[in-house]
């Protein structure tokens, strides 16, 4: 399936854009997405951490993705 992914902060610099398309296997999970991001963009592995939000909430690695989900890469936050 083809998903659209939004990027913020340093993630935007790594993928060189605020959003991009990624092709994932059907029934992919957040964990699969993270692995694919790290192999496509090795700079993600150098971050202190990064999380994935789906439909405006943090999701664990076993969370299943759907084509129409709003998927966002959340690099280490630094508000305040």
């Amino acid at each position, binding site marked *: 399936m083809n998903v659209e992914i*939004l990027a*913020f*902060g*340093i993630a935007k*610099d790594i993928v060189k854009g605020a959003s991009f398309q990624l092709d994932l296997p059907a029934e992919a999970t957040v964990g699969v997405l993270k692995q694919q991001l790290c192999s496509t963009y090795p700079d993600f592995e*150098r*971050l*202190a951490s990064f999380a994935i*939000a789906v439909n*405006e*909430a*943090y999701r664990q690695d076993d969370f299943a993705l759907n084509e129409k989900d709003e998927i*966002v890469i*959340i*690099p*280490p*936050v*630094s*508000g*305040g």
Partner: protein
Amino acid sequence: MIDIQLKDTPLSTTECSDLVASPSTGGTVLFVGTVRDHTKGKAVVRLEFEAYAPMAVSEMRKIAEEAKSRWSADKIVIHHRVGVLAIGEIAVIIAVATPHRVAAFEACQYAIDTLKETVPIWKKEIFEDGEVWVAAHP
């Protein structure tokens, strides 16, 4: 009462303290986070804040709700700025009003500490000779 705002215009301490004021309140704690002119000995020129807005607002609301129920806070306000900020400008204001002071201090501390861990907002420090996304790398 909970009031959460993500704004690209200057924040106001007066507005926040007025929002939490009430006759039943015995103590108000106001945390004001401002832009510091240095980090690790290096001069900072300005900061740029970026947010994943809908989730930043919902995560701030979660924090406020938790603080409100754990410390029986009457009112809690969290305002966070986005965009380009000069030295000395206010990046965040948290105001908590409770019947007694201890709860207000604790709830406010909880709110700012949790905000820094969970709210999807990112800060870029701009130096004379470069820039860095804060906390991105170990």
